[in-house]
């Protein structure tokens, strides 16, 4: 099937199998390998991207469902050389180690902060990130980074 997607501001018309996942199209068809796949049950969150402004697990969205949609991935959130405040905060707070969960974690965290009406506290950040696994950091510095980024978003 033909699917039209806007990904990180660029328009793409791609021909995909009916059962192709958004994560497959991003990684295999468009070469955007920053979106990672870490599980097969929609639990780990490594594949999180934004679809029409909200975070989704791209392994759980059929490419066809995203037809006509606006997708943002980890490759598309910086403004040129200016990193997104969440990217800056992750580095500044040592909120990543192996880096594999990081793209999904950052995409989830951005949506968490942007969709919150009031500033989040640490407990709310922990609960808000329940859809994303990190096996390296124990989340301690991720929570710090999100709170830090929130002040600059």
């Amino acid at each position, binding site marked *: 099937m033909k699917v039209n997607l806007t990904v990180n501001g660029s328009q793409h018309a791609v021909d995909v*199998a009916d*059962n192709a996942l958004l994560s497959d199209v991003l*990684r295999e068809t468009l070469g*955007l*390998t*920053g*979106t*990672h*796949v*870490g*599980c*097969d*049950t929609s*639990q*780990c969150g*490594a594949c999180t991207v934004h679809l029409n402004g909200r975070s989704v697990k791209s392994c759980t969205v059929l490419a066809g469902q995203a037809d006509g949609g606006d997708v943002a*991935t*980890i*490759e598309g959130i*910086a403004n040129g050389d200016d*990193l997104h405040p969440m*990217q800056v905060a*992750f*580095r*500044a707070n*040592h909120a*990543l*180690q*192996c*880096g*594999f*969960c*990081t*793209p999904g974690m*950052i995409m989830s965290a951005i949506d968490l902060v942007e969709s919150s009406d009031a500033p989040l506290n*640490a*407990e709310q*950040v*922990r*609960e808000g*990130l*329940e859809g*994303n*696994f*990190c*096996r*390296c*950091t*124990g*989340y*301690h*510095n*991720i*929570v710090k980074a999100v709170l830090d980024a929130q002040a600059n978003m």
Partner: protein
Amino acid sequence: MNAETGIGASVLRKEDARFITGKGQYTDDISMFGQTHCVFVRSPHARAKINSISTERAMAIDGVIRVFTGDELVADGIGDLPCGWVVNSKDGSPMISPPHPPIATTLVNYVGEPYAFVVAESLQAARDGAEAVEADFEVLEAVIDMATASSSDQIHENAPNNQAYDWELGEKDATDAAFDKADHITTLDITNNRLIPNAIEPRAALGSYDAASGMYTLYTTSQNPHVERVVLALFVNVAPEANLRVISPDVGGGFGSKIFVYAEETAVIWASAKIGRPIKWRADRSESFLSDAHGRDHVTKAELALTSDGEMLGLRVKTIANMGAYLSTFSSSVPTYLYGTLLAGQYKTPAIYVETQAVFTNTAPVDAYRGAGRPEATYVVERIVETAARELNMDPVELRRKNFIPPDAFPYQTPVALEYDTGNYAASMSLALELADSDGYAARKAASEANGKMRGRGYSCYIEACGIAPSQLVISLGAGVGLFESAEVRVDVSGSVTVMTGSHSHGQGHETTFAQLVSDRLGIPFESVNVIHGDTGRSDYGLGTYGSRSIAVGGSAIDKAMDKIIAKGKKIAAHMFETTEDQVEFAEGQFSFAGSNEPKPFAEIAGAAYIPAVYPLDELEPGLSEKAFYDPKNFTYPAGSYVCEVEIDPSTGVSRIEKFVAVDDFGNVINPMIVEGQVHGGLAQGIGQALLEHGIYDADGNLSTGSYMDYTMPRAADLPDFDVDMTSTPCTHNPLGVKGCGEAGAIGSPAAVINAITDALGVKDVPMPATPHTVWETIQQGA
């Protein structure tokens, strides 16, 4: 040194630039022209005879290129996957290592064991092909319970009683004598739960063969690509070593599970030559659960002999270790030399005797997982010490202090083979108590009780042994590899430096830490140092990263190579100063000579080395590039004191960690930010073991916890903030005074958590994981 980037500075990581922008290059991110895809066909049975395998239906599927079975590998001379450490039983006989073909041929011995694989044009076609492979199995009685394994059906023809070995360490008679004169004996029957490592990046491999050159290239998720290469070349016979290049690009966590040589990469690299095209495989998470080597899984009876006033006289430990169906790459060393040797803990217990019976079951192989033997040892020692204190009505802190090896007793020879070089255990304990606000505990406990909650506090004082070595010692104990590390420090013409290390980073930040080492020592900008690892085509043979060895062994190798760089630099400078090399000093990036007031910066000497105008080339070779292999003189011995405070809701059984304090002594620290991060991650896995994680097989050998829906990974809301601090007694035998920090958190924390929970509940033991259900049931039984 530069205060912002030198040793001891929390420099932000170089590698983050690519990871936070999605530019990391993990194995599955790499694709090759003409690439095919591979799916493994895995056993649905825990134990069965393979009568026949039919591949015709699979071959008929559009896009399927080839279906391979184990017989084809055997016919091509592909060998078994070896276990690289031969442990001897009490009677001196070597362990029994059953044949372990990468792709099963006549028998399958655990659910998930591969018995065929399908290579196809697309992943979808390979999946369809794998579903169409048909096998006729004769299902056999599975052996699952390790406690009864020795009296169950025999799994392997060459392993009577399903026993791999029956090992011992320490003096039995002296230990028995200590028990004879004891005033009090504390006994504890405990289990160390099976864990599934779960690096978030699943294992993957991309193999290719170039017929024109005869070169094989394997990209894979390995913590130690050189070990992967030598095993595949020498033991498995995939290719001559010279014709095999193994590359571990960015690796998304390992925690031990990516040390080992597995069936999948073996099959992929071998088959790539058969079909003449690259083959890629990436595990689904459900495959990771089934086929990554698992961790821990011990059943132990421990006894501690004490005087009535709490002096520890002797420790007797009998452990059954579940090895799973086969001996994985380094599995045999885990419940023996990485376990029994650590049972002295931080204490001067004079007599210790340990026996480990390693048994086979029809479950996934068990091997090293973060800590590897040392968490199991710490769990035994710190649970029984705390239990003994309660039985003797002593403060567990006081009992520990009374028995600590004092700072003036180092070097200290334990009764279980190790010689600790340095430590100050009481100092870590004091700091931990201060950070834990020990004085305010009574008030917090009263407040919890006023709210209908139960509060408990537990301690754990672990010892670790990192940087397993020296090579000749470990080889004499059965290791099939040396345990040195390699380094090459290559100075560029402009004075910038490229470092090649045999260590490998899969999250530890070596590109930053090693650059700090080099920048600090050579006095050059941090930005001018580039660290390269993970490619057998670029760095010398090295042993990789596990066992918290990289800074202590790999870092020391880099330091040793820099010794040679500086020595050669002095020779070159001596010619420029028209003096002798012993008159040249090197400090702060400058070569200087007392007879000259114009010191030569490092970059100037580098330039002179490559533009060799000033020194005689018959005396001194041009260039400035040096290699070193560093073989440690001893293990390093990180140690620490952990304090955990839990609050339990008796109506739900939920245990909430209210406070977790970790004080570690890692000796000198290069980058405190990275070290603290390593501790955080270790604590999360240790707390995960204590409260949440459990790899469970049912009686038929099906993995009940085979997905993230069933295996409870710690999520952000499950964990507390950590209070992390450090003390320091620098290692005495490596040039950097460093010890290693990767595993400490996972080693020390489970006992602290369970000691806190048992304190809160007033019971002797709660099995790990102390889930709400388990805790609630324990409360009900006591009620």
